[in-house]
């Protein structure tokens, strides 16, 4: 094996039997995951890849432009015919195991377009730098997902009155290859788990979910940090306490409950779990760096989203926020789907401009122009997106 990879597999003896290093399958992640060549690889063990703003121009994000976030090593040898989902936990009435076929035949199917954004999208802008993959703007997507409601499945197994949280279990491997450890096992409070749009998806954009995005079964919790939408789903535990799985504890996916100064140390008990993502938007056309002729208007467009809420208002500025003009904003196709905006931008004279976009949610919260509250892991940067334009 070592000669095939061209490097010795250190600790190869500890590699689980049957685990084939991805390097042997296809070293090209763009080919392996069918991604656009303009996607950026942030990490290759585990795989993490992000889109650029202009790649997210479609109303419904295709696989080619979807960011990849992994906490562990992708599962191998997926056998759809043997795949099962087990509902268990302290607060389940009857522990139950369903095959994929049972899930699909027993429960009603629903399709929703769901915005999924990585909690750390925009991390690269925090100062002092925050630890983790340095996402810029492209760790967000909004594809169309088809599946069964988690609520229907949980109710079929039975939910006890003391249920407070659900936690998912999945087939990906821990980076240390320790079979006793889960790479990621996050979850959400019952209220989110029981929403109409929280589904166990088996299709994306009308087809089988791409392997890297969780085939054959993925939990989808739109509007919340993407880490709640567990891939390669094998189980859901109904918990009588806040789920304490991998990446639910410590400082993972948490921000200080009270604002702190940049760089300040926070005690674990002063950190709160991120729930709904904040209001945000992205200019997806044109790509930053557009040069236009003086006298021509620039048509811009993009998407806006607001976690659990809707975006109520969309504006843009060409003078660094001195003045804001309204953009045309569409309603979402369903709750938790991103909304599309467009505007015709005129420039007063030749020169260098930046077009800034600002969304405001239904509670009046708007995107800040500066990077918001510093936090140790660099989550929730929803600062305004901007593109550079030259009028010649």
């Amino acid at each position, binding site marked *: 094996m070592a000669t095939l990879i061209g490097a010795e597999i250190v600790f190869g003896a500890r590699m689980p039997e049957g685990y084939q290093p991805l390097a042997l399958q296809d070293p090209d992640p763009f080919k392996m995951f069918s991604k656009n060549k303009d996607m950026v690889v942030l990490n290759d063990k585990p795989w993490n890849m992000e889109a650029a703003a202009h790649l997210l121009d479609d109303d419904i994000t295709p696989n080619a432009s979807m960011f990849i976030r992994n906490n562990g090593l992708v599962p191998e040898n997926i056998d759809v015919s043997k795949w099962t989902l087990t509902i268990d936990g302290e607060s389940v009435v009857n522990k139950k195991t369903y095959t994929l076929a049972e899930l699909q035949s027993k429960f009603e199917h629903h399709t929703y377009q769901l915005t999924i954004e990585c909690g750390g999208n925009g991390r690269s802008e925090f100062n002092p730098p925050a630890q983790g993959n340095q996402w810029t703007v492209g760790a967000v997507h909004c594809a169309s997902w088809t599946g069964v409601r988690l609520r229907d499945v949980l109710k079929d197994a039975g939910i006890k009155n003391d249920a407070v949280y659900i936690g998912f279990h999945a087939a990906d491997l821990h980076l*240390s290859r320790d079979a006793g*450890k889960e790479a990621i096992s996050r979850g959400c409070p019952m209220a989110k788990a029981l929403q109409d749009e929280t589904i166990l998806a088996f299709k994306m954009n009308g087809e089988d979910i791409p392997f890297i995005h969780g085939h054959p079964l993925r939990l989808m919790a739109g509007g919340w940090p993407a880490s709640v939408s567990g891939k390669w789903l094998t189980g859901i535990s109904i918990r009588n306490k806040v789920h304490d799985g991998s990446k639910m504890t410590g400082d993972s996916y948490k921000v200080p409950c009270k604002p702190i100064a940049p760089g300040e140390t926070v005690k674990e008990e002063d950190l709160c779990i991120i729930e709904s993502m904040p209001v945000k938007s992205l200019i997806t056309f044109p790509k930053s*760096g557009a040069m236009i002729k003086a006298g021509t208007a620039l048509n811009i467009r993009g998407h806006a989203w607001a976690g659990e809420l809707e975006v109520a208002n969309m504006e843009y500025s060409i003078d660094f926020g001195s003045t804001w003009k309204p953009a045309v904003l569409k309603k979402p196709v369903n709750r938790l789907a991103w909304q599309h905006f467009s505007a015709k931008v005129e420039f007063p004279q030749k020169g260098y401009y*930046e077009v800034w976009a600002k969304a405001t949610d239904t509670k009046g919260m708007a995107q800040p122009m500066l990077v918001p509250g510093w936090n140790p892991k660099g989550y929730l940067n929803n600062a305004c997106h901007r593109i550079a334009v030259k009028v010649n």
Partner: protein
Amino acid sequence: MAKKEDFPNLITKIYNLMLLVISLVILAGGALVYYAIDPDFSVFQLPSAPIAATETVNEVDELNKIENGIHVRTGLVDAEGLMTVVNNCTYCHSAKIILQNRMNTDRWNATIKWMQETQNLGDLGSNQEVIVNYLVTNYPPKMIGRREILTNIDWYELKTNNN
């Protein structure tokens, strides 16, 4: 008489010698077969989290090639402590996550502690100081302010411009 006893004695000696040689050959063969299956002799090691890996001397040149001051295989800067970082840090995760991060001594130590508590990293001993020194020296935090100017703009002529 002496001559009569010498012959059976010689036979016995040869027989014993041959037994010894055959046993040695079998033992050595077994060891070789085992080495082929498990070159790390992992069965005889305590099951512990991955710590340092030792370089295989004859593969070092190709495996740890340095070009323009960069360790080609990992992208890490060639500086004091490089191989300690490569051997201790890039088994579980890619060097790409190291290259993306800029932290001070305290926060690198806290990150190592987190890996030990949750990610099966073992005690690094005296290597920890070497690793953290390498990181803070070669990848110090950059002060970027509250919002950076746009950089690396790839200018292009915008032709079609319709919504």
